[in-house]
């Protein structure tokens, strides 16, 4: 075996250049950190740091700008896709993404999300779904599963009273404005690689002016689910994935690529 | 010169464009102008009106309650604005469809069978031009050639073939005033 190859194989982690070297405020085991890292890896690999503008609205990731070394705008709760629309419309040659949680994107920002996708805004929406409000301390989210406990559904979500968990990704896939819609996760290294590949593809599609790319990342919330990180990933597999099944919901037809 | 006018009638009778033509023409004579339409649901089938002010001096209020001239094109407008004419002011109306005429004696009342005249000229849409012609005969505040130039501005280009007919209507209105 060749020496160089040997070294490369042992290099298991390298901080992406675009990821700022500070301690994150995210809880141990939270999917945000991983998603940030692969987003930065994609930015590095595509060499697009000077072209990317990110939007992070209210939620755990509201201060994502403390970690991502790119130009960013913080947005009001639910409004990220409208803000991203504004940026993209005046700077169509730049690469714009929003990074939103499930409370933000699927409750207070539903109108903005659907209309942005329906207009086919040429942006990337990254949707972190952990079925709970993390930043405010574990309240029910629109995506909270049936019978799942939260601080505002202490006896479990009664769907007759509190509504059903909403599958935003399935909804936006039905809209003609979306180009690439996929649901991924970051709970295993294999899934991390798939999510990263999806993000990379989405930026490449944006470069080709193809319309809205929408990537849901089914994620966890060890703190508010009140579990260890390992248990939370196990719970995710047993409870989240059967309902929020992974895979592509809308992919470009072969001729288009 | 300061002429404060209100023009009122049904939506579709050309009430608003009469005021606009006066304003466009006024600008050509370097006058100050102001045009304030009634707006909202009234526009749809109900009554419409516009306050039009032409002046040599800067115009203060575009909203006024008393007028030098009222031009009324239907019965509701006659009823509503008879008392809005200043003493000695002008009240000009289309009498074709008015069964209850104005009765004030301290104003100058002019009645015109304008709708009937328009029918005779085979185009009911020129009713407003007949009325405008009559007004200009009574109150010659703007030259006819400038009114025609103003008309060109208000009328979309695809209707410019109708300019001669409109000019005839203006002259007809002038003739009808005695």
């Amino acid at each position, binding site marked *: 075996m060749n020496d160089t190859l040997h070294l490369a194989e042992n290099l298991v982690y390298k901080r992406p250049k675009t990821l700022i070297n500070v301690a994150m405020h995210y809880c141990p085991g939270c999917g945000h950190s991983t998603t940030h890292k692969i987003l930065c890896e994609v930015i590095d690999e595509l060499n697009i*740091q*000077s*072209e*990317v*503008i990110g*939007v992070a609205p209210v939620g755990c990731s*509201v*201060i994502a*700008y403390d970690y*991502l*070394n*790119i*130009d*960013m*705008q*913080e*947005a*009001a709760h639910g*409004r990220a896709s*409208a*803000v*991203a*629309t*504004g*940026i*993209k*419309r*005046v*700077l169509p040659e*730049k*690469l714009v993404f929003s990074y939103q949680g499930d409370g933000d994107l699927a409750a207070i920002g539903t*109108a*903005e999300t659907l*209309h942005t996708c329906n207009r086919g805004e040429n942006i990337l929406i990254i949707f972190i779904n952990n079925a709970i409000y993390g930043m405010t301390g574990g309240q029910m989210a629109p995506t909270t599963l049936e019978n799942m406990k939260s601080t505002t559904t202490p006896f479990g979500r009664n769907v007759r009273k509190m509504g059903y968990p909403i599958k935003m990704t399935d909804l936006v896939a039905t809209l003609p404005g979306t180009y690439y819609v996929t649901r991924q996760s970051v709970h295993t290294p294999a899934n991390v690689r798939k999510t990263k590949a999806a993000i990379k593809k989405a930026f490449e599609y944006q470069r080709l002016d193809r319309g809205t790319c929408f990537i849901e990342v089914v994620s966890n919330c060890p703190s508010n689910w009140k579990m260890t990180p390992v248990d939370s990933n196990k719970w995710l597999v047993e409870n989240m994935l059967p309902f929020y099944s992974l895979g592509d919901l809308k992919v470009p037809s072969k001729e288009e690529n | 010169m300061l002429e404060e006018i209100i023009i009122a009638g049904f939506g579709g009778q050309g009430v608003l464009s009469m005021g*606009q033509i006066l*304003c*466009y023409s006024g*600008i050509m004579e370097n006058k*100050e*102008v*102001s*045009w*304030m*339409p009634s*707006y*909202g649901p009234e526009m749809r089938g109900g009554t419409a009106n516009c306050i039009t002010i032409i002046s040599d001096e800067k*115009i*203060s*209020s*575009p*909203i*006024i*309650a*008393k007028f030098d001239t009222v031009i009324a094109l239907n019965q509701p407008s006659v009823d509503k604005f008879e008392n809005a004419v200043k003493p000695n002011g002008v009240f000009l109306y289309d009498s074709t469809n008015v069964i209850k005429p104005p009765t004030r004696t301290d104003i100058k009342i002019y009645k015109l069978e304008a709708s009937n005249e328009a029918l005779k000229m085979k185009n009911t849409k020129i009713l407003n031009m007949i009325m405008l012609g009559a007004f200009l005969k009574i109150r010659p505040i703007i030259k006819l050639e400038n009114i025609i130039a103003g008309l060109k*501005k208000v009328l979309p280009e695809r209707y410019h073939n109708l300019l001669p007919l409109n000019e005839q209507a203006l002259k007809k209105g002038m003739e009808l005033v005695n």
Partner: protein
Amino acid sequence: MGELKLMKGNEAIAEAAIRAGADAYFGYPITPQSEVLEYLANEAEKRTGMVILQAESEVAAINMVYGAGGTGKKVMTTSSSPGISLMQEGLSYIACAEIPCLLVNVVRGGPGLGTIQPGQSDYLQATKGGGHGDYKLLVLAPNSIQEMVDFVKEGFDLAFKYRNPVLILTDGVLGQMMEKVELFDQIPRSKEIPSWATVGKPPNRERNILTSLNLQPELMEKHNEHLQAKYREIEKNEIRVETINCEGADYIFTSFGLTSRICIKAAQLAKEKGIKIGIIRPITVYPFPYETYAKYADKVKGFFDVEMNAGQMLEDVKLGVLGKAPIKFHGRMGGMVPTPDEVFHVFEEKFLGGKE
């Protein structure tokens, strides 16, 4: 001399926006100002390449303004009262993140859905903040279509000078009426990128972040102090007021926007009866010209404030006059517009008739 045109107020705003070199407009239809979006949809893109987008709501529109404004472009929106209420959240964020932008409120009578007829009942919302937190918009109150045109251009300049949202506070009459306007020549769209703009981080500068958040109260207070210092600077530099015949006047009529013109006509009626009336018209309603009132407070027999609301600017007039002269108020609400005769009559009744 610029091009002379007869224009409706709303169309004049739109035309002025194109000529001012605006880069983008985001809006949502609402009476009585929908002509702005309609005019821009027809004209703007083909003439200057300006971006025009009809948003799904006023909430979305103001956040699009936030995003696009954050790239350093000249961005604007227009709406009318209920729509402006919906924008208050976004405006608070915009003010805090110091994103320059231009807004126009073609006010209609409220509260609630109210009416589509004109009003001035958004004065307090416009001048005292409007949304949550300590912030100010710079507010211009035109009283003619000519000023609407001029203020669009100047509004953009002020917005960029102070990195602050600027609001043109007008009303349904000024939006719908037509007057002669002199249009300024086309200003090319700017290619300049302000240093703070989020346009993609080049290798040779630190990343730009536009945010209204700071979780550390010590730092958030510092930012508030910075904003307040800016507002004091605006108060020092940008007050605009029109006074007419105030020297030697018996009484002063005061009013902003459309009603100031109704007052000017009412003052003419008073003059015919031998009463000398001066006019104070605040052109900027924030910053407010308190000192102009103070200057005449001990020289006149009284102030007569006329507004299309229940007495909103009246609070500022009182702060200017500081009890040195009597102040009477006449307000119409719900979309009603006072006439000059009515204003004079009420003035006579309140000051000369010995009533009240």
